[in-house]
């Protein structure tokens, strides 16, 4: 059994163990769930250390027959990109548990259900990045919606039911298109000597360009909804506004990455011709997303939807990097996915604490927090700095790589994207000023600073941002082979500098 399967099973076992624990003992349930998630982190770290960065082939592969009639297999395996995303997931989950220790208590259902849902979600999040069978990927891709649906609808705030429904319907719509494209792909593979859902085999198919375009769109729209690209983004702010901080973290930090991951893994891999056809349009959408997300973030009055819009802007950057199809752009985009996970986690978690303490999520209700809660204020500030890609933090490296990578091929898009850094400064500093600076109003004077548990939760996130900002080499080394494989498959090479050295 591959270590990947172990990694997927562990949270599931955790969920089963939690399920048999007594409902009343909330503390035990939380501790068990946290224990299992930490175990998962440990195993995934072990896996990362035994990962060979000099190999381009998939590692830790395992294949078992699942539905043999359609040649569907349970097959898993990872490359550097998947490894980076899985590590991000397994590190974020215990942090989310720890940070939102009490956020499950005001839900529609019990604490127990909350943790079962989260652990199941973790299994799926690992599985979706590990799957090397498109059908398996699709099943997890759709099944992941359910725990999130219940997490938003059952444990959120405000109009949680409506938000959950909007999220579900949007995603299902995308999933449906993807399913259609998937079946089409299967039929084509059947006609070309044996139906298969294996990613490697599917990427070797020869598909005529008209079909490619349709199938590409089917996949792409599903992914563009997931990693919200303008104009398919409106579910995100609604969901972020209603979900708990932990759910939002996993939703934006991990689940949405499946979208950008899918664009690289499927859209580019299966349909190189169509990718070229649609690239100009997608680059345009990406640039619109960057600027549009930033402008809307500036205009938000509610802190969670502000973070959601900053993410739309950041997903624009990621998409820009992916479709620039240069090694800097692509590596930058993949690294961006990891950094955005941590950066958004820091933002949502700190914002979540602020909201919980103040009892309101309106930015106008905050103010002067720096004086009363210095640690919380600093954490939020650093998270904001990461969102505006301050050099020294990891998000800077990825953002710069994306821009420098796209500049060579699409200078106009890169220049427009770069203006996003000014807007980023605005949206971050405005919220920082309104919430942390200024005279502390009477209502905020009693707000408590972070306790030890919360400090332990936020510290690793900030540490990752800082360490990777100074020393991104390990992650970049893991990602680089993936990038090279993709570029070789797509048959493109980096633009050469105009003045030879």
């Amino acid at each position, binding site marked *: 059994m591959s270590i990947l399967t172990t990694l997927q099973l562990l949270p599931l076992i955790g969920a089963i163990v939690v399920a048999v624990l007594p409902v009343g003992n909330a503390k035990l349930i939380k501790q068990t769930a946290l224990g299992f998630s930490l175990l998962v982190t440990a195993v995934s770290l072990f896996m990362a250390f035994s990962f060979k960065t000099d190999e381009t082939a998939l590692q830790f592969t395992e294949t078992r027959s699942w539905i043999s009639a359609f040649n569907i297999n349970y097959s898993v395996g990872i490359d550097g990109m998947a490894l980076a995303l899985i590590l991000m997931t397994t590190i974020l989950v215990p942090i989310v548990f720890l940070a939102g220790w009490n956020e499950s208590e005001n839900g529609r259902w019990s604490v127990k259900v909350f943790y079962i849902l989260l652990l199941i979600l973790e299994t799926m999040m690992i599985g979706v990045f590990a799957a090397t069978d498109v059908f398996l990927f699709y099943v997890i891709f759709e099944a992941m919606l359910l725990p999130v649906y219940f997490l938003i609808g059952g444990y959120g705030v405000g109009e949680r039911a409506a938000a959950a429904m909007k999220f579900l319907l949007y995603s299902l719509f995308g999933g449906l298109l993807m399913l259609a494209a998937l079946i089409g792909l299967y039929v084509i593979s059947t006609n070309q000597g044996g139906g298969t859902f294996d990613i490697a085999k599917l990427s070797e198919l020869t598909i005529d360009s008209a079909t490619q375009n349709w199938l590409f769109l089917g996949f792409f729209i599903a992914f563009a909804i997931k990693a919200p690209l303008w104009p398919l983004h409106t579910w995100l702010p609604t969901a972020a506004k209603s979900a708990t901080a932990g759910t939002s973290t996993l939703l934006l930090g991990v689940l949405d990455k499946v979208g950008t991951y899918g664009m690289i893994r499927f859209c580019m891999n299966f349909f190189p011709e169509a990718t070229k056809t649609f690239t100009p349009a997608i680059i345009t959408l990406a640039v619109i997303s960057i600027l549009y997300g930033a402008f809307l973030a500036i205009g938000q009055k509610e802190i969670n939807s502000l973070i959601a819009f900053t993410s739309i802007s950041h997903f624009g950057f990621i998409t820009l990097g992916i479709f620039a199809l240069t090694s800097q752009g692509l590596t930058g985009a993949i690294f961006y996915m990891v950094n955005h996970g941590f950066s958004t986690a820091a933002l949502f978690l700190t914002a979540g604490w602020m909201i919980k303490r103040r009892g309101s999520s309106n930015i106008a209700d905050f103010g002067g927090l720096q004086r009363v809660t210095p640690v919380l204020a600093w954490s939020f500030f650093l998270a904001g700095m990461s969102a505006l890609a301050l050099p020294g933090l990891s998000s800077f490296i990825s953002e710069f790589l994306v821009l*420098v990578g796209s500049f060579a091929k699409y200078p106009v898009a890169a220049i427009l994207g*770069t203006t996003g850094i000014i807007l980023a*400064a605005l949206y971050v500093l405005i919220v920082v000023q309104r919430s942390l600076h200024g*005279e502390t109003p009477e209502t905020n004077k009693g707000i408590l600073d972070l306790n030890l548990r919360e400090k332990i939760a936020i510290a690793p996130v900030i540490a990752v941002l800082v360490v990777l900002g100074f020393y991104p080499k390990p992650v970049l080394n893991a990602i680089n082979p993936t990038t090279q494989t993709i570029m070789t498959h797509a048959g493109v090479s980096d633009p050469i500098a*105009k003045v030879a050295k």
Partner: protein
Amino acid sequence: MTTSTNLVYLIALPLFSAALLLLLGRIADKWGHIFATLISGSVFVIGVAEFFAMQDRDGEARAATQKVFEWISVGTFQVDASLLLDQLSICFVLLISGVGTLIHIYSIAYMSHDHDRRRFFAYLNLFIAAMLLLVLGDSYLNLYVGWEGVGLASYLLIGFWNQKPEYATAAKKAFVANRVGDLGLSLAIMIAFTQFGTVTFAGVKEGASGASAGALTAIGAMLLLAAAGKSAQFPLQSWLGDAMAGPTPVSALIHAATMVTAGVYLITRSNFIFDASPTAQLMVVTVGAITLLFGALIGTAKDDIKKALAASTMSQIGYMILATGLGPVGYAFAIMHLLTHGFFKAGMFLGAGSVMHGMSDEVNMRRYGAIGKVMPITAATFGLGYLAILGVPPFAGFYSKDKIIETAFNAGGIEGILLGGATLLGAAITAFYMTRVIVLTFTGTKRWDENAHPHESPLLMWAPMAILAIGSVTSGFLLNSGSALVNWLQPVVNERHEHHAEEFLPPLVVSTMALVVVAIGIAFAILKYRTVSVIAPTDVSIFTKAARKDLYQDSFNEAVLMRPGQKLTAGLVTTDYKVIDGLVRSVGWIIQTTSSALRSIQNGYVRSYALIMVLGVLTLVTAIWMVTL
């Protein structure tokens, strides 16, 4: 090129200290300021040691590098965390750590009553680390990290008292204006990478000779934009005045002596780009000339002593930028003026801080007067700085500023006359507003607030001022004797030793002209400010009104950028809700309406169900019948 192993400590020490003081929190309150000062002092000691080590090496071996670690490596984009200490960066290292340490010492006393003194010192150390990284990085990207790092430190320090909303706003404004400049630097790096395949200074220098004029001009223009943001040059100058919200030592260190001169460093460092692109040079001198007059004009009308000095800083940096645009001859003079300015302007800011300290934080010069008698040391050190900025021989400014005026005239043709004229005019206005500051503050009659009890500042404060004053007196002479600085910088800025373009005017004439206009400026100021009213007169010329409003720079920015931006944002928010999400919601609405319409058929009456069944069967039968026909 020598390999060194010590350079990293220049940055690591203050960075470590900053992190330590911030992480320890209140535990470090008792010793934080002393620790930070010691760290800054030890950085200075390392700097001096490196300087002497450099003196021992000759020619090519003088510059030292250190590769700390491999930073980013993606495809052909290879950037190491490497440091480069050459003749140019050592000037900055000494200035930053030297003036920095003096200001640390000064701040121990100046901030002694502040609850958050430790945090202040942590920020100062953070600034030192970032600024040293800025001048020591061996590639544009390393420089960029320091570039934004100083921006962050500046933001934190301007907003040090951010419980006051206007201070927080000033900090934000500075950061955003700087970000506009950073946009330029980012784009310059991107263009450089696509052109040369590398972003190290050495690599770009090598490639610059083979690049197209358009590319070089584009890089030059973007670098100029970056410099304008950081150095408060036209059109991004508006943040500097507001930045005076920070504690006065910060204004002295960051917003006078070091950070704001980073733009001059950037252009001097990129001399190979600008030397190859006359268009970019023309832009540089234009920006410099506009700013030097712009700043000087604002300086004439400010009643806030710090804002008057800030305007002066802007104007003096305008001189430096102008000098860097004058080609190989100008760089050394720009750096010389930068160094002398570092001494006299920091000294004057500290003097202003000393006055404020004695006058319970009063900044309005109309409330000062006759302070020279109660604060003799402050007045004396300030006075020496004043003589230096005016360019009176043999004070520092005489050597550095006159050289710039001279070089400007020598640029030749109409350009030379225009630039030379601008610098001369600037010198006259400088004399006017600086004399105004002196007259309003130190001489004349007392116009103090009833509660003011001015007193001389403690030793910890006046000692740094005195050292800076000595620098203001001697630095120009020392740097210029035997063209010391020019020769020192020659390997970096490539100044050829053969005699350059013929002189437009002999140096003596230029100096005489400069002194005459300065005398006129002084005379005007003394005459005009024989009597001073406590309340600023309102019946003033439109020029004064404009200068008081910073020549409408803020109004312009608000009208052209801010308000349309706010409208755009508000419009987009509405559009997003009404149009994009509206479309999505209308899909839901259509489904809902349709289904509720269909629901009315389900009325519960068996008879109507039966009727529908009959009709259905009839339709079906008819359909089948028609098809089989």
